[in-house]
């Protein structure tokens, strides 16, 4: 039976600096064909308050209210309250949330129409908008081999399906491989990760492709044609025995990417000792031969014939896959953008990633916390021989929750900062540790308990972000306000750690363009539905996992990796994959709405 109750539609489109892309005029013209709709109101027609809405319900005799807009949930309580006051059913306030269904652009108008039509007829959008299916190729492409990509790859490969795991850098492991410990359990990050990395390398169903970048994705869900640029390592992975003779002889140096620039590596190098694949590679930017055409020290030193080929060129590879999981990860906020904290000016102002390396037992100092010092060539590096700091300050929210940089909370900084405090006291029991925070976000399982534990360990936790870091008499002077005391606090410390926030990785924008996935506010990849489909996208056969979807910690990242893998395995088991949601013609959804509403 079709819906006949008198329905009023309220278009909630307040403009908060962002232009609402939806053409509400077109929408209102469209829904005239639904007889249940008696009236339509716009946000700027009248002030939305109890009296006015009550008056409209009474004068138009409305039984059901639909609030349509980008984020209509904000005003739902107001309408429910009015319905209750009027003695009507507050449950008959229905939301048509465009944001929830990824409607962000002018071109999404048909989906907006169908979401609204579903709300009018009381049919769940997910049931009405069922895309057609296509047959699926069982091979899967995973973009990014951090912990999310590794997790997803292992899950899918263990279901006996082929996975191409594509990684841009020379090793898999991603950011997690650089961490010392995980919070709140204080497990050794490498001890968790490296077995998974080895499993990836040895798995018969995983084809690992490092130094690769996605160029183009063509075709339909279930049968994608992916063009991949395979950047040359200039070292033959099959024959390299990883002896390290080449590195010893190489005269060129560059800052190590893996150590967040805190040590120097050679131009021919292995990113880190546990790298997978554990083979050498050449960095074209620092290699003398590639720049000047003279050197070849590594080729002369290499014991394996023809293993190093300095003139090797990049190649293009094409893959046929049925599903794609994007796990492109994040980058950290560039602390130099906030000059008041002195990063890049004072050598002992560190970012959190640098400090992770400093803490790490396999890091540049063997896990000793020491000052940054200059090597013979004048590069600022960490070395185990430097002095140890006696007092350290950790400043939270650098580049996060800041309208000048990133508005969002990066979710992990509070917890990793507390972890730092613990590890510092672990290694330097006499040190004084200060945490400067604004709000402490210890939201997860065991996190609040972890926070309590750190407090008991004697860390000075100060509420109030600092305003600036300056150097005075060889010490770092921190000036901030203690909010709880309402006093200016000036503090002299030896080392400052900036808890930098997370940002979408450099490749996110490009990948979104290639894959035709929209980006959310802040640049993250947009999920199909924030609540109910966080690893899906509006594109059929393309899933997202990990921090490319939004800032998150390791447990959540791993969970998303598995969740995305489950979706892929479902598609493979069913032998079919849904087409893109935006390919369904409006008429088809309308017919389906009609069908479903008649069943009711």
């Amino acid at each position, binding site marked *: 039976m079709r819906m006949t109750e008198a329905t009023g539609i309220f278009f909630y489109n307040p403009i908060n600096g962002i232009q609402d892309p939806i053409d509400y005029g077109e929408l209102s013209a469209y829904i005239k064909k639904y007889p249940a709709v008696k009236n339509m109101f716009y946000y700027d027609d009248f002030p939305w308050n109890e009296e006015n809405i009550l008056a409209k319900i009474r004068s138009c005799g409305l039984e059901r209210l639909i609030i349509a807009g980008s984020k209509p949930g904000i005003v739902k309580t107001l309408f429910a309250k009015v319905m209750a006051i009027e003695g009507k059913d507050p449950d008959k306030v229905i939301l048509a949330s465009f944001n929830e269904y990824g409607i962000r652009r002018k071109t999404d108008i048909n989906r907006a129409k169908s979401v609204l039509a579903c709300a009018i007829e009381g049919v769940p959008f997910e049931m009405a908008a069922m895309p057609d299916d296509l047959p699926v190729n069982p091979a899967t492409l995973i973009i990014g081999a951090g912990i999310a990509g590794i997790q997803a790859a292992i899950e899918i490969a263990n279901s006996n399906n082929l996975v191409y795991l594509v990684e841009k850098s020379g090793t898999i492991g991603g950011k997690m491989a650089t961490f010392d410990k995980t919070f709140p359990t204080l497990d050794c990050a490498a001890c968790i990760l490296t077995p998974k990395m080895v499993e990836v390398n040895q798995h018969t169903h995983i084809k690992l492709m490092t130094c690769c970048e996605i160029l183009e994705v063509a075709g339909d869900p279930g049968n994608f044609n992916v063009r991949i640029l395979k950047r040359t390592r200039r070292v033959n992975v099959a024959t390299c025995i990883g002896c390290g003779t080449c590195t010893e002889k190489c005269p060129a140096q560059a800052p190590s990417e893996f150590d967040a620039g805190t040590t120097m590596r050679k131009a021919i190098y292995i990113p880190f000792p546990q790298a997978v694949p554990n083979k050498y590679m050449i960095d074209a930017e620092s290699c003398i031969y590639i720049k000047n055409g003279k050197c070849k020290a590594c080729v002369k030193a290499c014991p394996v014939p023809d293993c190093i080929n300095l003139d090797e060129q990049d190649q293009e590879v094409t893959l046929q896959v049925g599903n794609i999981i994007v796990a492109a990860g994040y980058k950290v906020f560039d602390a130099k953008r906030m000059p008041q904290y002195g990063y890049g000016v004072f050598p002992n102002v560190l970012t959190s990633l640098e400090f992770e390396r400093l803490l790490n037992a396999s890091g540049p100092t063997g896990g000793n916390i020491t000052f940054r010092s200059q090597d013979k060539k004048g590069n600022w590096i960490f070395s185990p021989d430097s002095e140890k700091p006696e007092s350290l300050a950790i400043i939270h929210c650098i580049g996060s929750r800041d309208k000048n940089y990133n508005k969002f909370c990066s979710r992990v900084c509070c917890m990793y900062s507390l972890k730092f405090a613990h590890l510092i006291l672990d290694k330097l029991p006499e040190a004084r540790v200060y945490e400067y925070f604004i709000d402490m976000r210890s939201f997860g399982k065991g996190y609040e308990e972890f926070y309590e534990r750190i407090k008991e360990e004697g860390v000075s936790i100060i509420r109030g972000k600092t305003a600036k870091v300056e150097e005075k008499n060889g010490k770092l002077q921190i*000036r901030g306000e203690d909010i709880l005391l309402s006093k200016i606090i000036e503090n002299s410390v030896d080392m400052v750690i900036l808890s930098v926030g997370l940002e979408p990785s450099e490749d996110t924008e490009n990948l979104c363009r290639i894959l035709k996935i929209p980006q959310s506010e802040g640049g993250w990849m947009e999920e199909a539905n924030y609540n109910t489909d966080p690893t899906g996208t509006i594109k059929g056969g393309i899933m997202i996992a990990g921090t490319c979807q939004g800032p998150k910690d390791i447990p959540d990242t791993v969970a998303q990796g598995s969740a995305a893998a489950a979706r892929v395995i479902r598609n493979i088991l069913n032998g079919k994959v849904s087409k893109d949601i935006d390919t369904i013609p409006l008429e088809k959804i309308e017919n389906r709405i009609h069908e479903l509403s008649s069943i009711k």
Partner: protein
Amino acid sequence: MSVRVQPELRNQLIQFGIGDWNACYHCGTCTAICPLSEEGFLFPRKKIRLMQMGLKDQLESSVEPWLCYYCGDCSKTCPRDANPGELMMSLRRYLTSKYDWTGLSKKFYTSEVWELAFILLFAALVVIAFLVILPSMGYHFTKELTADGGVKVNSFAPIHIVEIFDWTMAGVVATLLISNILRMYYQIIWKKSKTKVSLWVHIREFWLLIFNFAVQPKFSKCDDKRYWLSHWLLMSGYTIMFIVIVVYLPWFQTEKIYPVWHPQRLLGYYATIGLLFGLGVAIIGRLVRKDVKFQFSHVSDWLFVIMLTLTATTGILIHVFRINGMPVATFISYIAHMAVLVPMILIEVPFSKWSHLAYRPFAVYFAQLKKYAVPK
């Protein structure tokens, strides 16, 4: 002592130009970055908290808004775009209206109609005075020139009458200002205070008032010293003009044309240049809106610079027309000058933005007194 949260105060504060008062999440960056914020007188964050909670009494008895010279560092570094600098500016407007016992200040700050109506009223009175009252008393405009070719200004604006008027106006304004300062003193030092300040401290620290009035040393502590300089030029130019016009009018408003290096002309030129430079900086700043300090312009900010600019330019015109022997033009520009000057002094000084000439140095003085307060 417990306090009551009064969210209704926000509606009042919004009228004085306070924008997003709830954006602040209390990270303390503004207080820590501020070169003027010091122990015992911390701002802006603490004041923002008072606004968020609507603690009216504590807001009204705070001296800190006057200790802020709006360099804009806080607004620049604020992670929440809460504009603490502008919040402090708005608080100064609010406090001005609270010190004023007539209630006119609040009217002028919150209603452009009131402000414009009063300006027009005073301007009209000035015009009537020159066109009706003074001629009826026998002082007529004449086209005759003096022996050295200057305009006979004293014919239509007789010095002894203008002088009486100047003194009267200065007296009215001073009375209003002094009574407001006494109210300010009561709010900051006396009200609900558990401490007292000895008379000796009052006398001993009095020099601070003079010193701060003359050179604004606090302003010069802001990181950008240029604004201190342009403000000082404007302020010194204005003070010179005020003194010569009120106290030495017979010496200043002469029919005789002195040579260029005569102190009468030199002082006048310095004052004009100082005024125009300071005003130029303010007007260009407010139009370009590049500096945080000038990004938000309340109606009262614009009225102040516009009226002062008009006063200065009409003053220049009087001078130019007079020495060049152009009687009609001199007459018109004299009336125009007075028609802008009178409302500006009567409205801006006791009730609006210009009252800061008294409140700021007194605030520094009162803050110093508070430092030496002892328990009652």
